């Protein structure tokens, strides 16, 4: 009898353990909602099984708030016994979660851009990975483009939040190295109804180019104001604007704007030889099938890439341990770190113990807005 119970118990336990639990916390509401919503939409498209194991996705909204993000992480770990956490959307939220996941020895794949999330590598960050390109990577692309186009002076206007600040930090550093002079550094709020003051100051400084560090439709306001006040120089945006709503709101004022982006934005224009094209088109197809043509944003693709990492790492981890165990999480972490040549929608991952992003030049392209669409700059 006792033996039977033991067997039953084992069978039940095995049945429960067979599922892989993936915890997701993202900013589906609050200031970062325009980033978090496509990510959330993408979660619904993710594979239901990985390596023959059923996968449960537990999705929580952190309302773009660090306290809630940490609370969510604690909940996912303690209540849902997740094997891995995907999230969060913003850099502060992801930074705040590091201590929690490191203590629980649970791997985490962030969907935020800040390099601080994985640098400098230490015992805590050993558990943290990320899928979006670092701001520095994108900023380098812009600065290179500026240098090639004889831009000598540039003005920056960015969000008065972690996004605008992250871009400013990286961009100003790289621009200085490349001898581009920054003549103005302005901030605005997502919800501001007017940026006239900032724009007048920028125009008065007569820069060759302006970089707008904002995400989604709010980034259109400075651009429209610049045009309205007669600014004629080159305008750069960041990859944060890469969604259809931005084009809708910005309209003709955004023609000729340059921005760096993940290749997924212009997947169809990539040469067939580029392996990313196939991966990106697969995601685009799935997303647009559900949400309509032109609905895709590059942010959702970060969530997709996070699962790509899992799909490649889980079989390796399964060989070592059962899901739901500390050993599995450890093995998963190790396997994630060993990701090599994994083609995803935004680039090709080559992780190492020092680099938990592992993207190279292929992870970014320059894009120009042309005729109301994104055009790959060759």
């Amino acid at each position: 009898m006792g033996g039977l119970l033991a067997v039953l118990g084992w069978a039940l336990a095995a049945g429960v353990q067979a599922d892989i639990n993936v915890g997701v916390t993202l900013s589906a509401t609050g200031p970062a909602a325009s980033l978090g919503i496509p990510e959330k939409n993408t979660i619904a498209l993710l594979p239901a099984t990985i390596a023959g194991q059923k996968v449960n996705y537990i999705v929580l909204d952190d309302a773009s708030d660090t306290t809630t993000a940490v609370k969510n992480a604690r909940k996912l770990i303690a209540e849902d016994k997740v094997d891995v956490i995907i999230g969060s959307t913003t850099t502060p939220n992801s930074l705040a979660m590091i201590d929690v996941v490191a203590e629980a020895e649970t791997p985490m794949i962030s969907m935020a851009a800040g390099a601080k999330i994985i640098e400098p590598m230490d015992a805590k960050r050993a558990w943290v990975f990320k899928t979006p390109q670092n701001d520095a990577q994108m900023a380098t692309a812009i600065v290179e483009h500026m240098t090639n186009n004889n831009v000598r002076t540039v003005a920056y206007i960015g969000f008065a939040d972690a996004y605008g600040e992250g871009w400013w930090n990286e961009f100003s550093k790289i621009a200085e190295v490349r001898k581009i002079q920054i003549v103005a550094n302005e901030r605005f709020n997502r919800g501001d109804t007017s940026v006239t003051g900032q724009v007048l100051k920028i125009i008065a400084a007569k820069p060759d180019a302006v970089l707008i560090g904002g995400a989604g439709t709010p980034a259109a306001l400075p651009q429209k104001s610049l045009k309205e006040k007669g600014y004629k120089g080159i305008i750069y945006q960041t990859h944060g604007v890469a969604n259809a709503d931005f084009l809708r709101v910005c309209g003709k004022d955004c023609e000729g704007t340059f921005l760096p982006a993940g290749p997924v934005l212009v997947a169809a224009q990539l040469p067939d030889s580029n392996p990313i094209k196939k991966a990106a088109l697969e995601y685009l197809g799935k997303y647009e099938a559900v949400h309509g043509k032109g609905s895709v944003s590059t942010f959702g693709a970060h969530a997709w890439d996070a699962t790509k990492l899992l799909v490649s790492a889980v079989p390796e981890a399964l060989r070592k341990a059962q899901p739901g165990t500390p050993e599995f999480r450890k093995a998963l972490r190790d396997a994630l770190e060993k990701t090599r040549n994994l083609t995803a929608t935004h680039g090709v991952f080559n992780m190492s113990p020092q680099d938990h992003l592992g993207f190279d030049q292929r992870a970014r392209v320059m894009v120009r807005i042309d005729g109301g669409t994104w055009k790959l700059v060759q």
Partner: protein
Amino acid sequence: MNLQIALLLGQDGVTSGAIYALLALALVLVFAVTRVIFIPQGEFVAFGALTLAGLQADRLPGTIWLLLALGTAIALVEGGAALRQRRYRRIPLILLVNCAAPLLLAGALVAVSPAGLPLPIQVLLALMLVVPLGPMIYRLVYQPVAEVSVLALLIVSVAVHVTLIGLGLFFFGAEGSRTPAFTEVSFEFGEAVLQGQTILVVVASLVLIIALYFFFERTLYGKALRATAMNRTGARLMGISGQLAGMLSFTLAAAIGAFSGILISPITTIYYDSGFLIGLKGFVGAIIGGLASYPVAAAGAVLVGLLESYSSFWASAFKEVIVFTLILPVLLWRSLTTRHPEEG
């Protein structure tokens, strides 16, 4: 800063200030009549603008569902009351106003393609969708607790604000919208261009403020509202029902809010959560007016707009710090010069 920049900033500040002034007036009105500090005032700005944008994009705006839901809820509440009091004759009217009218509107929106309609009709439709939400919210949320403390009413307002923000995200998504300008006219001053829409905002605000003045001074309803604001009990004794005054003030507030949103959506992008900050700045103006004086509130609102504009030029990262720190001395001065009824 040269003169041209100073002028442009001033014009920008006045434009923002005009909108803040409208909202400040609405806030003063609602507070004076009902003692409600109407935090969701800003949501009407966003709802008005985004409903119009939705109509122009040929989408059925989510606000219609809210209208239907609130109408049904009121019909249930009032119908239930009528049944209990055996006043069956009132029921058809209740159903007509609260259920049939919104349904008719919804039907009309489905039947015709709103994107093809001329702009004034679209604006009218947007107002018809959004403005009734004001009195409906008053009827359902505030009227049952009309007698509680100002603090409790304020907290109810916070709850309404949270709900409406959630609904706004659900209806309109996280991304913003703009609507086409009412007028493409523009004037050139040297190198600078002054958009016709900007002038329109200021002129329309002024016209609206003057219209409100005549409403309060010359019309029966306006006088009734003023009477209620001055003395609630007295007004009730004179046969002006607090409920009517409340509904009326919320209708006006909703109309002012939605109209402000429609006015500014061609010159800026409006998001589902834009309203709070715009409303907050209107609130600052309203407070400078002591939540009692309309002209001072309007002047305060314009002051906020100007402060904002100039500080965004001088130190944009510290804009809010400057605006809100400079507000403190103004508040202090107002506080010392305003006589409060003892222990108000």
